[in-house]
Protein backbone atom coordinates (compact mmCIF):
# COMPACT_ATOMS: atom_id res chain seq x y z
CA UNK A 1 0.00 0.00 0.00
CA UNK A 2 1.04 3.55 -0.72
CA UNK A 3 2.37 5.55 2.18
CA UNK A 4 -0.51 7.35 3.80
CA UNK A 5 -0.76 10.53 5.80
CA UNK A 6 -2.30 10.65 9.25
CA UNK A 7 -5.48 12.66 8.94
CA UNK A 8 -7.95 13.37 11.72
CA UNK A 9 -11.41 14.70 12.29
CA UNK A 10 -10.79 17.83 14.36
CA UNK A 11 -14.14 19.60 14.42
CA UNK A 12 -17.79 18.83 13.95
CA UNK A 13 -20.91 20.93 14.27
CA UNK A 14 -24.45 19.87 13.60
CA UNK A 15 -27.77 21.68 13.74
CA UNK A 16 -30.19 19.66 15.87
CA UNK A 17 -32.29 17.52 13.54
CA UNK A 18 -35.83 18.87 13.22
CA UNK A 19 -38.88 17.91 11.19
CA UNK A 20 -38.85 21.30 9.52
CA UNK A 21 -37.04 24.55 10.14
CA UNK A 22 -39.63 26.97 8.80
CA UNK A 23 -37.46 29.99 9.53
CA UNK A 24 -34.28 29.16 7.70
CA UNK A 25 -33.31 28.08 4.21
CA UNK A 26 -30.53 25.51 3.82
CA UNK A 27 -27.70 28.03 3.62
CA UNK A 28 -28.94 29.85 6.71
CA UNK A 29 -28.98 26.56 8.60
CA UNK A 30 -25.47 25.79 7.39
CA UNK A 31 -23.72 29.08 8.13
CA UNK A 32 -23.89 28.68 11.90
CA UNK A 33 -22.43 25.18 11.67
CA UNK A 34 -19.46 26.27 9.57
CA UNK A 35 -18.79 29.09 12.05
CA UNK A 36 -19.14 26.72 14.99
CA UNK A 37 -16.82 24.09 13.51
CA UNK A 38 -14.14 26.72 12.79
CA UNK A 39 -14.55 28.12 16.29
CA UNK A 40 -14.08 24.66 17.79
CA UNK A 41 -10.75 24.47 15.96
CA UNK A 42 -9.79 28.00 16.94
CA UNK A 43 -9.15 29.00 13.32
CA UNK A 44 -10.55 31.37 10.73
CA UNK A 45 -11.60 30.38 7.27
CA UNK A 46 -8.22 31.07 5.67
CA UNK A 47 -6.73 28.19 7.67
CA UNK A 48 -8.70 25.71 5.56
CA UNK A 49 -7.14 24.59 2.26
CA UNK A 50 -9.97 22.67 0.65
CA UNK A 51 -13.74 22.52 0.86
CA UNK A 52 -16.16 19.80 -0.17
CA UNK A 53 -19.90 19.46 0.17
CA UNK A 54 -22.59 16.86 -0.35
CA UNK A 55 -26.18 17.60 -1.26
CA UNK A 56 -28.72 16.70 -3.96
CA UNK A 57 -30.65 19.07 -6.21
CA UNK A 58 -33.79 16.93 -6.26
CA UNK A 59 -34.33 17.04 -2.50
CA UNK A 60 -35.62 20.58 -2.72
CA UNK A 61 -36.26 20.56 -6.47
CA UNK A 62 -33.78 23.33 -7.07
CA UNK A 63 -31.14 22.88 -9.78
CA UNK A 64 -27.74 24.25 -8.66
CA UNK A 65 -28.95 24.60 -5.06
CA UNK A 66 -25.40 23.87 -3.90
CA UNK A 67 -24.02 27.00 -5.58
CA UNK A 68 -25.61 29.18 -2.90
CA UNK A 69 -23.78 27.20 -0.22
CA UNK A 70 -20.47 28.66 -1.46
CA UNK A 71 -21.53 31.94 0.14
CA UNK A 72 -21.79 30.44 3.63
CA UNK A 73 -18.74 28.18 3.36
CA UNK A 74 -16.37 31.14 3.32
CA UNK A 75 -15.50 30.91 -0.36
CA UNK A 76 -13.96 34.35 -0.65
CA UNK A 77 -11.47 34.74 -2.01
CA UNK A 78 -12.06 31.59 -4.08
CA UNK A 79 -11.23 28.24 -2.52
CA UNK A 80 -10.26 24.87 -3.97
CA UNK A 81 -13.62 23.13 -3.96
CA UNK A 82 -15.61 20.10 -5.00
CA UNK A 83 -19.33 19.50 -4.69
CA UNK A 84 -20.59 15.94 -4.72
CA UNK A 85 -24.17 15.05 -5.54
CA UNK A 86 -24.02 12.49 -2.71
CA UNK A 87 -24.37 12.04 0.99
CA UNK A 88 -21.77 14.31 2.55
CA UNK A 89 -19.92 11.32 4.04
CA UNK A 90 -18.64 10.72 0.52
CA UNK A 91 -17.54 14.35 0.33
CA UNK A 92 -15.51 13.64 3.47
CA UNK A 93 -14.05 10.60 1.72
CA UNK A 94 -13.00 12.76 -1.21
CA UNK A 95 -11.55 15.42 1.10
CA UNK A 96 -9.49 12.69 2.75
CA UNK A 97 -8.20 11.63 -0.70
CA UNK A 98 -7.25 15.26 -1.43
CA UNK A 99 -5.20 15.37 1.72
CA UNK A 100 -3.59 12.03 0.82
CA UNK A 101 -2.70 13.45 -2.60
CA UNK A 102 -0.76 16.15 -0.79
CA UNK A 103 -2.78 18.99 -2.31
CA UNK A 104 -4.22 20.08 1.01
CA UNK A 105 -3.60 19.75 4.73
CA UNK A 106 -7.00 20.84 5.98
CA UNK A 107 -10.53 20.49 4.65
CA UNK A 108 -14.01 21.65 5.44
CA UNK A 109 -16.83 19.22 4.64
CA UNK A 110 -20.46 20.35 4.60
CA UNK A 111 -23.78 18.59 4.28
CA UNK A 112 -27.10 20.39 3.89
CA UNK A 113 -30.53 20.13 2.32
CA UNK A 114 -34.13 20.94 3.11
CA UNK A 115 -35.56 17.43 3.14
CA UNK A 116 -38.86 18.80 4.46
CA UNK A 117 -39.46 20.89 1.37
CA UNK A 118 -40.07 17.85 -0.80
CA UNK A 119 -41.68 14.45 -0.28
CA UNK A 120 -38.84 11.92 0.03
CA UNK A 121 -41.00 8.97 -1.03
CA UNK A 122 -41.66 10.65 -4.36
CA UNK A 123 -38.26 12.27 -4.76
CA UNK A 124 -36.26 9.12 -4.09
CA UNK A 125 -38.36 7.10 -6.53
CA UNK A 126 -36.39 9.05 -9.14
CA UNK A 127 -33.13 7.46 -7.98
CA UNK A 128 -34.24 4.17 -9.51
CA UNK A 129 -33.71 3.25 -13.16
CA UNK A 130 -36.49 4.87 -15.17
CA UNK A 131 -37.40 1.83 -17.31
CA UNK A 132 -38.16 -0.90 -14.80
CA UNK A 133 -37.97 0.11 -11.15
CA UNK A 134 -39.07 3.76 -11.02
CA UNK A 135 -41.74 2.89 -13.57
CA UNK A 136 -43.60 0.58 -11.20
CA UNK A 137 -43.71 3.29 -8.53
CA UNK A 138 -41.18 1.97 -6.02
CA UNK A 139 -40.47 4.39 -3.17
CA UNK A 140 -37.69 4.19 -0.56
CA UNK A 141 -39.95 2.90 2.22
CA UNK A 142 -41.13 0.06 -0.02
CA UNK A 143 -37.64 -0.86 -1.20
CA UNK A 144 -36.50 -0.86 2.44
CA UNK A 145 -39.46 -3.13 3.23
CA UNK A 146 -38.45 -5.48 0.40
CA UNK A 147 -34.99 -5.64 1.88
CA UNK A 148 -36.36 -6.23 5.38
CA UNK A 149 -38.51 -9.04 4.03
CA UNK A 150 -35.54 -10.68 2.32
CA UNK A 151 -33.53 -10.38 5.53
CA UNK A 152 -36.29 -11.77 7.73
CA UNK A 153 -36.86 -14.68 5.36
CA UNK A 154 -33.21 -15.66 5.42
CA UNK A 155 -32.33 -14.92 9.05
CA UNK A 156 -35.62 -15.81 10.71
CA UNK A 157 -35.69 -12.38 12.37
CA UNK A 158 -39.10 -11.45 13.74
CA UNK A 159 -41.18 -8.32 13.93
CA UNK A 160 -40.52 -8.39 17.67
CA UNK A 161 -36.75 -8.23 17.12
CA UNK A 162 -37.11 -5.22 14.85
CA UNK A 163 -39.26 -3.53 17.51
CA UNK A 164 -36.71 -4.28 20.22
CA UNK A 165 -33.87 -2.81 18.18
CA UNK A 166 -35.88 0.30 17.33
CA UNK A 167 -36.72 0.76 21.02
CA UNK A 168 -33.03 0.58 21.97
CA UNK A 169 -32.24 3.30 19.43
CA UNK A 170 -35.08 5.44 20.78
CA UNK A 171 -33.65 5.10 24.27
CA UNK A 172 -30.25 6.21 22.98
CA UNK A 173 -31.79 9.09 21.05
CA UNK A 174 -33.28 10.41 24.26
CA UNK A 175 -29.71 11.07 25.45
CA UNK A 176 -28.59 12.83 22.24
CA UNK A 177 -29.39 16.54 22.17
CA UNK A 178 -29.20 16.63 18.36
CA UNK A 179 -31.62 13.75 17.78
CA UNK A 180 -35.06 14.38 16.34
CA UNK A 181 -36.89 11.65 18.29
CA UNK A 182 -36.05 12.16 21.95
CA UNK A 183 -38.95 10.39 23.68
CA UNK A 184 -37.99 6.92 24.89
CA UNK A 185 -40.53 4.24 24.14
CA UNK A 186 -40.89 0.51 24.51
CA UNK A 187 -40.72 -2.31 22.00
CA UNK A 188 -44.34 -3.11 22.91
CA UNK A 189 -45.46 0.38 21.97
CA UNK A 190 -43.50 0.35 18.73
CA UNK A 191 -44.83 -3.08 17.78
CA UNK A 192 -48.36 -1.65 18.02
CA UNK A 193 -47.74 1.12 15.52
CA UNK A 194 -49.31 0.64 12.07
CA UNK A 195 -47.40 -0.75 9.15
CA UNK A 196 -45.56 1.87 7.15
CA UNK A 197 -44.97 -0.77 4.51
CA UNK A 198 -45.09 -4.29 5.92
CA UNK A 199 -42.78 -5.66 7.35
CA UNK A 200 -41.72 -2.19 8.55
CA UNK A 201 -43.86 -0.35 11.10
CA UNK A 202 -44.09 3.40 11.36
CA UNK A 203 -42.51 3.21 14.79
CA UNK A 204 -39.39 1.59 13.33
CA UNK A 205 -38.67 4.36 10.84
CA UNK A 206 -37.38 7.90 11.26
CA UNK A 207 -39.69 10.74 10.34
CA UNK A 208 -38.65 13.32 7.72
CA UNK A 209 -35.91 15.40 9.27
CA UNK A 210 -33.46 18.08 8.26
CA UNK A 211 -30.23 19.54 9.56
CA UNK A 212 -26.96 21.05 8.40
CA UNK A 213 -23.51 19.80 9.30
CA UNK A 214 -19.89 20.83 9.02
CA UNK A 215 -16.90 18.63 9.73
CA UNK A 216 -13.23 19.59 9.60
CA UNK A 217 -10.36 17.30 8.63
CA UNK A 218 -6.69 18.06 9.21
CA UNK A 219 -3.43 16.28 8.56
CA UNK A 220 -0.86 15.48 11.20
CA UNK A 221 1.06 18.59 12.15
CA UNK A 222 -2.03 20.76 11.96
CA UNK A 223 -4.60 18.45 13.52
CA UNK A 224 -2.99 18.55 16.96
CA UNK A 225 -3.11 22.35 16.95
CA UNK A 226 -6.78 22.43 15.98
CA UNK A 227 -8.08 19.85 18.42
CA UNK A 228 -6.93 18.55 21.81
CA UNK A 229 -8.15 15.03 21.02
CA UNK A 230 -8.22 14.47 17.25
CA UNK A 231 -9.98 11.36 15.95
CA UNK A 232 -7.38 9.86 13.62
CA UNK A 233 -8.60 8.17 10.48
CA UNK A 234 -6.85 4.81 10.45
CA UNK A 235 -8.71 3.33 7.52
CA UNK A 236 -11.46 4.13 5.06
CA UNK A 237 -13.01 2.48 2.04
CA UNK A 238 -16.15 2.90 -0.03
CA UNK A 239 -17.99 0.68 -2.51
CA UNK A 240 -21.06 0.96 -4.71
CA UNK A 241 -23.12 -2.01 -5.86
CA UNK A 242 -25.28 -2.49 -8.91
CA UNK A 243 -28.67 -0.94 -8.36
CA UNK A 244 -31.18 -3.49 -9.66
CA UNK A 245 -32.84 -4.81 -6.51
CA UNK A 246 -33.43 -8.24 -7.99
CA UNK A 247 -29.88 -8.41 -9.30
CA UNK A 248 -28.26 -8.62 -5.87
CA UNK A 249 -28.92 -10.52 -2.65
CA UNK A 250 -30.88 -7.89 -0.77
CA UNK A 251 -30.54 -9.79 2.48
CA UNK A 252 -26.83 -9.04 2.47
CA UNK A 253 -24.70 -5.95 2.03
CA UNK A 254 -21.78 -7.08 -0.09
CA UNK A 255 -20.59 -3.49 -0.41
CA UNK A 256 -20.54 -2.80 3.33
CA UNK A 257 -18.77 -6.11 3.89
CA UNK A 258 -16.03 -5.36 1.37
CA UNK A 259 -15.60 -1.75 2.49
CA UNK A 260 -15.31 -2.88 6.10
CA UNK A 261 -12.69 -5.51 5.25
CA UNK A 262 -10.62 -2.97 3.33
CA UNK A 263 -10.95 -0.24 5.95
CA UNK A 264 -10.03 -2.63 8.76
CA UNK A 265 -7.02 -3.89 6.80
CA UNK A 266 -5.87 -0.32 6.25
CA UNK A 267 -6.32 0.33 9.96
CA UNK A 268 -4.41 -2.78 10.91
CA UNK A 269 -7.34 -4.26 12.80
CA UNK A 270 -8.46 -7.87 12.46
CA UNK A 271 -12.10 -7.45 13.35
CA UNK A 272 -14.74 -4.74 13.52
CA UNK A 273 -15.56 -6.03 16.98
CA UNK A 274 -12.19 -4.68 18.17
CA UNK A 275 -13.52 -1.13 18.28
CA UNK A 276 -15.48 0.48 21.12
CA UNK A 277 -18.14 2.39 19.22
CA UNK A 278 -19.86 1.88 15.88
CA UNK A 279 -22.12 4.42 14.19
CA UNK A 280 -24.13 2.85 11.38
CA UNK A 281 -26.08 4.75 8.76
CA UNK A 282 -29.05 2.40 8.90
CA UNK A 283 -32.46 3.87 8.29
CA UNK A 284 -34.40 0.73 9.28
CA UNK A 285 -33.77 -1.87 11.98
CA UNK A 286 -33.37 -4.48 9.25
CA UNK A 287 -30.66 -2.44 7.54
CA UNK A 288 -28.87 -2.22 10.86
CA UNK A 289 -28.99 -5.99 11.33
CA UNK A 290 -27.79 -6.56 7.76
CA UNK A 291 -24.90 -4.17 8.33
CA UNK A 292 -23.98 -5.84 11.61
CA UNK A 293 -23.82 -9.19 9.84
CA UNK A 294 -21.76 -7.73 6.98
CA UNK A 295 -19.30 -6.17 9.40
CA UNK A 296 -19.14 -9.09 11.77
CA UNK A 297 -20.75 -7.27 14.69
CA UNK A 298 -23.05 -8.64 17.35
CA UNK A 299 -26.13 -6.45 17.08
CA UNK A 300 -27.29 -7.48 20.54
CA UNK A 301 -23.92 -7.16 22.29
CA UNK A 302 -22.87 -4.34 24.58
CA UNK A 303 -19.38 -3.80 23.14
CA UNK A 304 -18.81 -2.26 20.74
CA UNK A 305 -21.67 0.11 21.45
CA UNK A 306 -23.74 0.43 18.30
CA UNK A 307 -25.34 3.77 17.49
CA UNK A 308 -25.09 5.34 20.94
CA UNK A 309 -26.39 8.51 19.27
CA UNK A 310 -29.55 6.62 18.34
CA UNK A 311 -28.42 6.65 14.72
CA UNK A 312 -30.59 7.52 11.74
CA UNK A 313 -33.57 5.75 13.36
CA UNK A 314 -33.95 8.83 15.59
CA UNK A 315 -33.09 11.42 12.93
CA UNK A 316 -32.41 10.94 9.23
CA UNK A 317 -31.56 14.14 7.40
CA UNK A 318 -31.06 12.88 3.85
CA UNK A 319 -27.64 13.56 2.27
CA UNK A 320 -25.94 14.20 5.62
CA UNK A 321 -26.96 11.24 7.81
CA UNK A 322 -23.71 9.52 6.84
CA UNK A 323 -21.53 12.51 7.65
CA UNK A 324 -23.26 12.76 11.04
CA UNK A 325 -22.08 9.19 11.77
CA UNK A 326 -18.49 10.29 11.18
CA UNK A 327 -19.09 13.34 13.35
CA UNK A 328 -20.57 11.16 16.09
CA UNK A 329 -17.54 8.85 16.00
CA UNK A 330 -15.38 11.96 16.43
CA UNK A 331 -17.51 13.15 19.35
CA UNK A 332 -17.07 9.80 21.06
CA UNK A 333 -13.29 9.72 20.65
CA UNK A 334 -12.87 13.39 21.47
CA UNK A 335 -14.96 13.11 24.62
CA UNK A 336 -17.59 15.46 23.22
CA UNK A 337 -20.56 13.10 23.09
CA UNK A 338 -21.90 14.40 26.39
CA UNK A 339 -25.09 12.56 27.36
CA UNK A 340 -24.53 9.70 24.97
CA UNK A 341 -20.80 9.27 25.43
CA UNK A 342 -19.36 5.75 25.62
CA UNK A 343 -16.91 5.54 28.50
CA UNK A 344 -13.34 4.79 27.48
CA UNK A 345 -13.98 4.87 23.75
CA UNK A 346 -10.64 4.76 21.93
CA UNK A 347 -11.56 3.25 18.58
CA UNK A 348 -14.63 3.70 16.43
CA UNK A 349 -16.19 2.70 13.14
CA UNK A 350 -18.37 5.17 11.27
CA UNK A 351 -20.48 4.11 8.32
CA UNK A 352 -22.21 6.16 5.67
CA UNK A 353 -24.62 4.98 3.02
CA UNK A 354 -26.81 6.22 0.22
CA UNK A 355 -29.16 4.83 -2.37
CA UNK A 356 -31.91 2.26 -2.08
CA UNK A 357 -31.22 -0.77 0.11
CA UNK A 358 -27.69 0.24 1.11
CA UNK A 359 -26.52 0.47 -2.48
CA UNK A 360 -23.40 2.46 -1.62
CA UNK A 361 -21.41 2.30 1.60
CA UNK A 362 -18.41 4.08 3.08
CA UNK A 363 -16.69 2.75 6.19
CA UNK A 364 -14.27 4.69 8.40
CA UNK A 365 -12.09 3.29 11.15
CA UNK A 366 -10.95 5.88 13.66
CA UNK A 367 -8.73 5.83 16.71
CA UNK A 368 -7.31 8.13 19.32
CA UNK A 369 -3.77 7.37 18.09
CA UNK A 370 -2.05 7.94 14.78
CA UNK A 371 -1.80 4.97 12.45
CA UNK A 372 1.34 5.68 10.45
CA UNK A 373 4.75 6.89 11.52
Amino acid at each position, binding site marked *: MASLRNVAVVGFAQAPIVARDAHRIATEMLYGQVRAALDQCGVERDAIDFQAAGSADYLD*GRPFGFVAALDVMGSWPAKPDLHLEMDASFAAYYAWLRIQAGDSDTALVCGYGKTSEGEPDRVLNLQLDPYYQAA*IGLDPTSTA*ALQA*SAWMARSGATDRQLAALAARRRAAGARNADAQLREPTTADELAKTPWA*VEPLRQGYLPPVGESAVCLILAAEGKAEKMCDRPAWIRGVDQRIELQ*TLGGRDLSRSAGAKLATERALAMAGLARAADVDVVELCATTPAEELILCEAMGLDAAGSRPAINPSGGPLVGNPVMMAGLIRLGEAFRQLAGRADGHGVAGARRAIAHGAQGHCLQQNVVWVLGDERRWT
Partner: protein
Amino acid sequence: MTEPLEQRVVTEFPYKHSTGEVIGRFLAGLKDQKRIWGQRVAGQGVVVPPVGYSETDGSAGGEWVEVKPTGVVTAVARVYRPIAQLHPCAEPFAFVLVKLDGADTALAHVVRDDLERLRVGTRVEAVWAPDADRTGSIRDIACFRVIT
Protein backbone atom coordinates in the same frame (compact mmCIF):
# COMPACT_ATOMS: atom_id res chain seq x y z
CA MET B 1 -39.87 35.88 15.69
CA THR B 2 -40.94 36.37 12.09
CA GLU B 3 -44.03 34.53 10.90
CA PRO B 4 -42.75 31.74 8.63
CA LEU B 5 -43.32 32.37 4.94
CA GLU B 6 -43.98 29.21 2.96
CA GLN B 7 -45.34 28.33 -0.46
CA ARG B 8 -46.45 25.14 -2.16
CA VAL B 9 -45.34 24.39 -5.71
CA VAL B 10 -45.92 21.26 -7.74
CA THR B 11 -43.16 20.50 -10.19
CA GLU B 12 -44.43 18.58 -13.19
CA PHE B 13 -42.02 17.76 -15.99
CA PRO B 14 -42.57 15.21 -18.75
CA TYR B 15 -39.63 12.99 -19.72
CA LYS B 16 -39.07 10.59 -22.59
CA HIS B 17 -36.38 8.09 -21.70
CA SER B 18 -34.87 6.50 -24.81
CA THR B 19 -34.61 2.78 -24.25
CA GLY B 20 -31.92 1.72 -26.67
CA GLU B 21 -32.02 -1.66 -28.37
CA VAL B 22 -32.04 -4.17 -25.52
CA ILE B 23 -34.55 -2.54 -23.18
CA GLY B 24 -36.58 -1.55 -26.24
CA ARG B 25 -36.78 -5.11 -27.56
CA PHE B 26 -37.60 -6.52 -24.13
CA LEU B 27 -40.50 -4.07 -23.85
CA ALA B 28 -41.58 -4.89 -27.41
CA GLY B 29 -41.71 -8.53 -26.33
CA LEU B 30 -44.13 -7.65 -23.56
CA LYS B 31 -46.23 -5.46 -25.81
CA ASP B 32 -46.32 -7.44 -29.04
CA GLN B 33 -45.68 -11.04 -27.99
CA LYS B 34 -46.83 -11.24 -24.36
CA ARG B 35 -43.53 -13.02 -23.78
CA ILE B 36 -40.79 -12.29 -21.28
CA TRP B 37 -37.20 -12.30 -22.50
CA GLY B 38 -34.01 -12.34 -20.58
CA GLN B 39 -30.45 -11.91 -21.69
CA ARG B 40 -27.56 -14.15 -20.73
CA VAL B 41 -24.66 -12.07 -19.39
CA ALA B 42 -21.32 -12.80 -17.79
CA GLY B 43 -21.37 -13.13 -14.03
CA GLN B 44 -25.14 -12.94 -13.65
CA GLY B 45 -26.64 -15.72 -15.78
CA VAL B 46 -30.02 -14.99 -17.35
CA VAL B 47 -30.98 -11.44 -16.41
CA VAL B 48 -34.66 -10.45 -16.39
CA PRO B 49 -35.39 -7.68 -17.15
CA PRO B 50 -32.27 -7.20 -19.28
CA VAL B 51 -30.31 -3.97 -19.56
CA GLY B 52 -27.84 -4.94 -22.27
CA TYR B 53 -24.76 -5.51 -20.16
CA SER B 54 -23.64 -7.36 -17.09
CA GLU B 55 -24.28 -5.28 -14.01
CA THR B 56 -21.57 -7.14 -12.14
CA ASP B 57 -18.66 -6.70 -14.55
CA GLY B 58 -19.83 -4.23 -17.19
CA SER B 59 -19.33 -6.64 -20.09
CA ALA B 60 -21.73 -6.54 -23.03
CA GLY B 61 -24.86 -8.70 -22.96
CA GLY B 62 -25.21 -11.98 -24.83
CA GLU B 63 -27.99 -14.13 -26.25
CA TRP B 64 -31.71 -13.73 -25.67
CA VAL B 65 -33.37 -16.40 -23.54
CA GLU B 66 -37.10 -16.64 -23.04
CA VAL B 67 -38.23 -17.23 -19.46
CA LYS B 68 -41.56 -18.42 -18.08
CA PRO B 69 -44.25 -16.04 -16.87
CA THR B 70 -44.26 -17.95 -13.58
CA GLY B 71 -41.80 -17.70 -10.77
CA VAL B 72 -41.10 -17.49 -7.06
CA VAL B 73 -41.29 -14.46 -4.79
CA THR B 74 -37.98 -13.52 -3.14
CA ALA B 75 -39.13 -10.41 -1.27
CA VAL B 76 -42.48 -8.86 -0.33
CA ALA B 77 -43.46 -5.34 0.75
CA ARG B 78 -47.15 -4.85 1.50
CA VAL B 79 -48.41 -1.32 0.92
CA TYR B 80 -51.63 -0.59 2.81
CA ARG B 81 -51.83 3.11 2.05
CA PRO B 82 -50.83 3.69 -1.56
CA ILE B 83 -49.41 7.07 -2.52
CA ALA B 84 -51.42 8.82 -5.22
CA GLN B 85 -49.60 9.65 -8.46
CA LEU B 86 -46.73 7.39 -7.52
CA HIS B 87 -48.00 3.90 -6.77
CA PRO B 88 -49.63 1.74 -9.45
CA CYS B 89 -53.04 1.41 -7.79
CA ALA B 90 -55.23 3.01 -5.16
CA GLU B 91 -56.06 -0.16 -3.22
CA PRO B 92 -53.63 -2.03 -0.96
CA PHE B 93 -51.11 -4.06 -2.94
CA ALA B 94 -47.66 -5.54 -2.55
CA PHE B 95 -44.37 -4.84 -4.23
CA VAL B 96 -42.55 -8.09 -4.88
CA LEU B 97 -39.32 -9.34 -6.32
CA VAL B 98 -40.02 -12.34 -8.53
CA LYS B 99 -37.43 -14.77 -9.81
CA LEU B 100 -39.08 -16.05 -12.96
CA ASP B 101 -38.61 -19.69 -13.93
CA GLY B 102 -35.54 -19.74 -16.14
CA ALA B 103 -34.11 -16.46 -14.82
CA ASP B 104 -31.18 -15.93 -12.46
CA THR B 105 -32.17 -12.45 -11.27
CA ALA B 106 -35.47 -11.17 -9.90
CA LEU B 107 -37.91 -8.70 -11.41
CA ALA B 108 -39.51 -5.97 -9.28
CA HIS B 109 -43.27 -5.86 -9.75
CA VAL B 110 -46.61 -5.84 -7.91
CA VAL B 111 -49.23 -8.28 -6.63
CA ARG B 112 -52.76 -6.98 -6.13
CA ASP B 113 -54.74 -9.92 -4.77
CA ASP B 114 -54.36 -12.62 -2.13
CA LEU B 115 -51.97 -10.41 -0.18
CA GLU B 116 -52.52 -12.44 3.00
CA ARG B 117 -51.22 -15.57 1.24
CA LEU B 118 -48.15 -13.83 -0.14
CA ARG B 119 -44.81 -14.86 1.37
CA VAL B 120 -41.20 -15.16 0.34
CA GLY B 121 -41.33 -18.46 -1.56
CA THR B 122 -44.88 -18.05 -2.89
CA ARG B 123 -45.30 -18.92 -6.55
CA VAL B 124 -46.82 -16.28 -8.80
CA GLU B 125 -47.72 -15.80 -12.43
CA ALA B 126 -47.75 -12.75 -14.69
CA VAL B 127 -51.14 -11.20 -15.49
CA TRP B 128 -51.05 -9.38 -18.82
CA ALA B 129 -52.61 -6.01 -19.44
CA PRO B 130 -55.31 -6.18 -22.14
CA ASP B 131 -54.04 -5.88 -25.72
CA ALA B 132 -55.28 -2.31 -26.07
CA ASP B 133 -53.54 -1.20 -22.87
CA ARG B 134 -50.07 -2.54 -23.58
CA THR B 135 -47.87 0.41 -24.55
CA GLY B 136 -44.40 -1.06 -24.34
CA SER B 137 -43.83 -0.63 -20.61
CA ILE B 138 -42.92 -2.85 -17.68
CA ARG B 139 -46.55 -2.29 -16.69
CA ASP B 140 -47.68 -4.24 -19.76
CA ILE B 141 -47.48 -6.96 -17.16
CA ALA B 142 -50.46 -5.63 -15.18
CA CYS B 143 -49.37 -7.46 -12.04
CA PHE B 144 -48.52 -10.92 -10.76
CA ARG B 145 -51.05 -13.25 -9.14
CA VAL B 146 -50.60 -15.96 -6.56
CA ILE B 147 -50.82 -19.48 -8.07
CA THR B 148 -50.15 -21.80 -5.12
